[in-house]
């Protein structure tokens, strides 16, 4: 398989996953604004940091406010992680890959892109429209995953899609988990307890994890259990552990994957060192940063081994 095709497949999957999770992130932020009581506040700057977009945002906007940030996350093409930009990139990548993807996939992705373009304005009119718009993006993305799962032969192309999707999903799960870090609420606030419970439940809901959490983990929602669940629950498909297991299973079926498997195993070892007992928001934030670095190392290994394989092949001398 061509290295460029592999790279395009991988990024197509990452962009689509990022678009979906950015929609989830925005829904969560909007809910949070409704859930926090007087006396608490949401730090917009911190939120951007959580999303990993604070530097980029500063280049284009003066201050961090809700309207600008929403536009930046949804529709600003200068932000390569905005929903619009992600879907556009995924669409461009798909165009170069049509001969190796299920026939309808291009139409689906093209359809999603056109939907976003046609509905951007309506979505920004009010919260209800925005919510419907984001939900529709998530469900259209699910149709795309369904098509890949049901109609695509499980060859190398499929594995690259799965790798991209799983890495991005693990990364975005940690970012969404980190949103509460942006809340400032004094611990002696009379509504502290109940608010934190609502906020953690909100995180579970935004990741479609609430039901599973209740069934598999605990009835009561508290930070240590939620964090433990979202990192470790291997039966939940958006948990970091589940994503890493998917990556490893994929790599076992792929050629020359030893180095990437080692990087994946390091990330898994890091996972088992997480101690949720003495956890607070700051410690969690630091731990999430570290986890993202481990995911980054898996990406670097994939990039080096597959997308740049020709550079390291010593047997052939390329003349300048």
């Amino acid at each position, binding site marked *: *398989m*061509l*290295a*460029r095709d*592999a790279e395009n497949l991988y990024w197509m999957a990452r962009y689509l996953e990022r678009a979906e999770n950015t929609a989830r992130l925005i829904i969560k932020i909007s809910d949070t604004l409704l859930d926090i009581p007087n006396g608490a506040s949401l730090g917009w700057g911190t939120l951007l940091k959580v999303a990993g977009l604070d530097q980029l945002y500063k280049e284009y906007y003066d201050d961090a406010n809700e309207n600008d940030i929403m536009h930046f996350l949804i529709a600003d093409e200068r932000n390569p992680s905005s929903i619009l930009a992600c879907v556009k990139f995924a669409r*461009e990548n798909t*165009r*170069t890959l*049509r*001969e190796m993807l299920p026939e309808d996939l*291009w*139409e689906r992705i093209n359809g999603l892109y056109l939907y976003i373009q046609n509905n951007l304005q309506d979505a920004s009119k009010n919260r209800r429209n925005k919510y419907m718009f984001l939900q529709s993006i998530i469900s259209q993305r699910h149709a795309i995953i369904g098509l890949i799962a049901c109609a695509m032969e499980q060859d*190398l192309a499929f594995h690259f899609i799965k790798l991209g999707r799983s890495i991005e999903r693990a990364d975005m799960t940690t970012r969404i988990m980190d949103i509460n870090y942006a809340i400032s609420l004094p611990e002696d606030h009379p509504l502290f307890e109940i608010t934190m419970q609502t906020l953690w439940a909100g995180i579970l809901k935004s990741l479609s994890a609430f039901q599973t959490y209740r069934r598999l983990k605990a009835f009561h929602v508290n930070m240590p259990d939620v964090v433990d669940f979202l990192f470790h629950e291997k039966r939940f498909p958006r948990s970091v552990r589940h994503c890493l297991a998917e990556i490893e299973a994929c790599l076992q079926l792929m*050629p*020359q994957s030893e180095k990437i498997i080692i990087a994946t195993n390091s990330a898994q070892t890091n996972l088992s060192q997480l101690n949720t007992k003495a956890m607070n928001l700051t410690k969690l934030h630091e731990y999430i940063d570290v986890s993202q670095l481990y995911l980054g190392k898996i990406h670097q290994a994939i990039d080096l081994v*597959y*997308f740049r*394989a*020709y550079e390291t*092949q010593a047997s*052939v*001398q*390329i*003349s300048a």
Partner: protein
Amino acid sequence: MKISSIEYASVQAYDELLDQHLRPRAVAKPLFDYLSSLDEKELQDRRHAVEATIMAMGITFTIYSDAGNIDRAWPFDVVPRVMSRREWEPIQAGLKQRLTALNMFINDLYNKQQIVKDGVFPIEVLKGSANFRKQCVGVTPRFGAWAHICGTDLVRDSDGTMYVLEDNLRVPSGVSYMLENRQIMKRIFPELFRTSTILPVDDYPTQLYNTLAALSPRNGEVPVIVVLTPGIYNSAYFEHSYLAQQMGVYLVEGSDLIVDENDVVYMKNITGLQRVDVIYRRIDDDFLDPEVFNPESVLGVRGLMRAWRSGNVAIANAPGAGVADDKVVYTFVPKIIKYYLDQDPILQNVPSYMCMYDDQREYVINNLDKLVVKPANESGGYGMLIGPRATQAERNQFKELILNNPRNYMAQPTLNISTAPTIIEGQLAPRHLDLRPFVLQSDNLYATTGGLTRVAMRQGSLVVNSSQGGGSKDTWIVEEDI
């Protein structure tokens, strides 16, 4: 479906399907019987089904405009162009004859230049050729074939004669539309294929694969074949992707390939480098290799010409094949056929005047209102003058152009090119068309059954190029009832 007799009365051209009394010709009789059995609504439904199919199959081409590049659906007319096998077979033979001679001509030009020495082909024409590549001198590709894929444009004049309008020997496109048009017709009008014997066209990808595979420099191994595309922003990207998929070969861009110091071409795979044997390139010579041609090119591959000259990779069409794809060289093709094959040409050239010769130039300048003037090296219908329809100012401008660079221009009488009934606003109206068959040559010769019929959708227009608003029709070569 009603025939627009008013529009038909206003054109004096030969119609492919209707005689002068607007009755269907014998070859089109079953088609017309069928069409007249459909009521207006039924036909409308089918046309909508066609449009939906085209969108769903994603058959598009890209139009470049100031408003950005847009993907446009391929305009398709459901009334096919029909020709009998009896008429087609000599044309097919003529196409093969022509390409055989042209390949011998190209090979001669890059080697002994015997045709020049024998005084059949003037040295000054060769000297003025923009497409003669000195980097190709001394090379003889396998089977002496340079143009492996040729798209020859044919038109029919009012007396019914088929003429060759031009030979496209560089990177001719359109064959995917020929294949897709047939798929669409089969899907939407299956009944038609039961009642008539329409010869199939679908073996083209296999024939193309065989043509390319025969060029592989590594005998005895399954050749690694790639289609080299400029990328998604090229207007024919759909076709590049389609052909790669149909042949089961790789679709690559220049940046996917690399040439090592032993002049071997590799592609960058996920597990390292894989040797490439045959490149079906869909980028022009100029962009092929920045080491040799345009140094600014980012579409090509550095060192590709070294690899080709060393015989380590086959390139189709070979670099430099365009030397015979030149509207001035075109005028010599009948002589070229006679010279190399000692045969009379089966297919006729349109009579042409070459502005490089004083007497012919004088005739052209004095008769600009009757002639079509074409620059030697343009394609896609750009930069021509259609004399009878031009303004005096345009004609004056061309007079200047010709006098400044006579070698670059040739002129032909305005042909009254044929029409076929085309659905326009619910009626069958005459629209002008041409035909582009595709001819292949490596160890074997092959010509498509029919080809791509391109139709000028605007009333009276003679320009069929898709970049300028042309559409297409399915082309049927049918077995006549005996």
